[in-house]
């Protein structure tokens, strides 16, 4: 029990950040009209592409001779970019269709 307390205490700021962010996420979504569910899903999908940054860090730190890390990292950055770019572009295309047409 006390190790759990200690863990919580040591990471208290992380816990605040995570809790608050989770609240923000929940509140932001709860009132969204269902028409926008699919674009939102797609937009959120693009945002978790932020994992790309982790891949960049990994590839950036790989030794010049560490081929395993270089190759896997390269793939990581590539697929991460796919997620980010593809995600935002697809979302944009979906949302483009919701725009109001100018009245004739």
């Amino acid at each position: 029990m006390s190790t759990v307390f200690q863990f919580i205490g040591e990471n208290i700021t992380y816990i605040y950040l995570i809790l608050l962010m989770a609240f923000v996420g929940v509140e932001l979504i709860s009132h969204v009209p269902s028409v926008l569910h699919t674009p939102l899903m797609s937009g959120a999908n693009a945002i978790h592409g932020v994992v790309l940054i982790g891949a960049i860090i990994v590839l950036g730190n790989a030794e010049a001779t560490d081929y395993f890390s270089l190759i896997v990292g390269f793939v990581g950055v590539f697929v991460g970019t796919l997620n980010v770019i593809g995600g935002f572009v697809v979302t944009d295309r979906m949302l483009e269709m919701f725009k109001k047409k100018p009245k004739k």
Partner: protein
Amino acid sequence: MNYLQEIAYLIGSVGFIVGIKMMGQADSARRGNLVAAFGMAVAVIATLFLDKSGFHIIGNLSYILIAIVLGTIVGTLMAKRVQMTAMPEMVSIFNGMGGLAAALISIIEWTHLKHVGEVVELGLYVPIVAGLIIGTISFTGSMVAWGKLNGKLGDFRFPAQQYINAIVLVFIIAAAYFTYSTGMASDIPWFYVTLGVSLVYGLLFVFPIGGADMPVVISLLNSFTGVAAACGGFLYDNNVMLMGGVLVGSAGTILTIVMTKAMNRSLTNVLIGMAGSGGSGGGTGASGGSVREVQATDVAIMCKYAQKVIIVPGYGLAVAQAQHVCHELELLLEEEGVEVKYAIHPVAGRMPGHMNVLLAESNVEYDKLIEMEDINPEFPTTDVVLVVGANDVVNPAAKNDSNSPIYGMPILDVDTAKQIVVLKRSMKSGYAGIENALFFDPKCGMLFGDAKDSIGKLVSEVKAL
């Protein structure tokens, strides 16, 4: 010049939040997507050219840039080329890529740890292994979802699947624990066992779920990938990864729940694969009453001389790709002075917003798409309702029959209109696999045939009149 990176990450995080917020409202949604993308760009640039102590160009920059450029080209092409109706598949692929990236990061970090020796620090190990497991499940799960959505993979159920899945999950956690407790010393490469079993679990998890429920599953896997990204944020003490990941993790979870609620299902219900038959299978309904068949000519006359026509689009409209000809009919009737509107049920079709996306594609004005709550009071003053390939969303059993599986789902009250015409191919049931008493309503006529053909006929008949 310190702290620039932290500030850039802060901007990135705020961009994500504001972006999601704006995406929640129709008029700002598109700009919201751009705001989120801007936040991402700032965060990526800050990672490439800054570090905690100031300007600093990251190692292997050329490789990184090549990978990014390649990813950008491929991603843009895929996203631009995809058909509107195949969008959920696309989202599923991209989601899988994110999961894969998270898993790859964990794999590399683990191999780096090898040099450290036998004891791994818990604070380092937990995010690595959690990122591995969650990322992997999200990856293979998304691939299965993609296969199901484009029809390459069918449903696949096996006995006691829930129990088997639960056992596999327990095994993953055990393997992860062994990885930690035995460190690098064990003969069995527990880490790779964890990886392998997680790959399998992703498959097992999604296989039994009905194809029509894939949007829900993708949304759930989406939030998984968010959590995997957050693990990376922990690992590298990187605020923007943490914030972005947690945001998507929580927003995705709620979105999943909201989506299942709109379909009058529960999440567990979806996950243990109790979906309807998916597609237009199901029993052939032939309940007590009799059905009145009508011809295109009659319907054309009804519409042309009506004051107000409401079109109720459903899954069949999407299947038949009848959106363009439908818009043509709408314009034609408007020229004749008929008021035409579309009644959009939140879960018509097979993904949320399906009808909006489809009709917007054929240039129907956004103002004409009226949501359920707003259009329901209008039916009593409507002369003709055209139900085009919709079924469950106009089924009065949702109101009257407390034994019906869709009982309690809000529906479009088309039966209060003066005349109803249903365009479908047969008397077969829809997604929920149940009969529809509406078809036996004396006010209701059936115009059998593929929706595209039928509407095409209506168009020429109206023109000919």
